[in-house]
């Protein structure tokens, strides 16, 4: 047993314990806090499995966006409530037996799959010169599997439209967090916000060579926007609704547009000519980063429930 394995076991143990606590903690808010820790631990797992791109995205989303969204929701939906009712359709022993069966089946199936032995990594490597980026994950996202990623940006757009459609009448992000944040918090934000914007730019630029890219950059920007929203100065309130909608769509539209340009240059959709691939990918990534940032921050900023403002200050 090497130290590496001991570390991996401890890490997996921590992730599993955190997951179990998050769902089963007697007090809702405790579960929510542990869930935030779960996200951070998962990003450690991605680091261990050699996926820093995922780790950056998970860290930015888990620490910056999910945390704020679930805490805000828990405040509304009874954060101190101790009762944690469960469905009792089946007797206890039967549900435990079913749980154990499910666990054994999953573990059994997963363990019979051996580590991937396909030659995909080599094939990705072989084609890299024609894609114009050195980061393999970026190459897969934007070039080899352009359709997937394009539609994913579409899913984000749909989620944003859904949240906007469910918005309470008269609700505006500017009205949601009205408090007098201590000067310390404002001061810290004034230092962190430029740092975050710089970090997003760095991740976007870095994405063609190393870990980073449009989603990571967008998530960091969105987290910064969430911080500002919490402090009562939401960036989303500064642009008109029309401009906001344009920013939501720009990633999806720009992705398609660049793909179509590739078609006119004689390729298939998203088959960029090698000479132009690098700048084309950067153009797509920049637009996608903007849309991801606006979408994720909007999911938080516009996510309040009807009548929030009249609920009174008692949590």
């Amino acid at each position: 047993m090497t130290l590496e394995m001991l570390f991996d076991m401890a890490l997996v143990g921590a992730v599993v314990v955190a997951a179990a606590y998050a769902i089963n903690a007697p007090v809702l808010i405790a579960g929510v806090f542990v869930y935030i820790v779960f996200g951070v631990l998962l990003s450690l797992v991605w680091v261990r499995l050699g996926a820093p791109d995922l780790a950056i995205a998970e860290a930015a989303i888990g620490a910056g966006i999910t945390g704020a969204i679930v805490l805000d929701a828990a405040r509304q939906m009874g954060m101190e409530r101790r009762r944690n009712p469960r469905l009792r359709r089946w007797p206890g022993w039967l549900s435990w037996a079913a749980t154990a069966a499910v666990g054994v089946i999953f573990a059994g199936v997963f363990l019979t799959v051996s580590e991937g032995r396909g030659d995909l990594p080599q094939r990705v490597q072989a084609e890299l010169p024609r894609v114009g980026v050195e980061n393999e994950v970026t190459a897969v996202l934007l070039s080899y599997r352009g359709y997937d990623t394009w539609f994913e940006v579409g899913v984000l757009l749909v989620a944003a439209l859904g949240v906007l459609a469910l918005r309470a009448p008269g609700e505006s992000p500017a009205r949601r967090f009205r408090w007098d944040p201590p000067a310390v918090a404002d001061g810290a934000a004034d230092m962190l916000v430029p740092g975050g914007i710089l970090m997003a730019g760095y991740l976007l630029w870095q994405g063609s060579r190393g870990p980073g890219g449009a989603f990571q950059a967008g998530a960091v920007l969105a987290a910064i926007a969430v911080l500002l929203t919490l402090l009562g100065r939401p960036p989303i309130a500064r642009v008109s609704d029309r401009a906001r909608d344009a920013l939501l769509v720009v990633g999806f539209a720009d992705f398609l547009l660049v793909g179509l340009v590739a078609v006119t240059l004689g390729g298939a959709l998203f088959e960029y000519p090698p000479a132009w691939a690098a700048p084309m990918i950067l153009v797509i990534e920049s637009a996608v980063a903007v849309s991801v940032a606006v979408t994720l921050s909007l999911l938080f900023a516009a996510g309040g429930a009807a009548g929030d403002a009249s609920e009174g200050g008692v949590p």
Partner: protein
Amino acid sequence: MSQLFLGVALLLVLLLVGGLARVLQGPTPHDRLLAAQLFGTTAIAILLLLAESSGAAGVLDVALVLSLLAMVSVVAFISCSRGRGAPE
């Protein structure tokens, strides 16, 4: 040397699991929040150690992102419980 880094990282993971007890016990939400805040810092320390022991690119960037956003959850909790519902 890299074994030492990994060993300390292992210790930090175990400490994190032990500290979860405080999140569960509370008794006030602020105690839970405090524990969660400590875990954020612990995770950053683990990342620094992993970055050094594996030498993989990008691990420091993960720590950088986490440290930039370490404040967001705390501000979210405080403003959600305190900053809402100010009379119009």
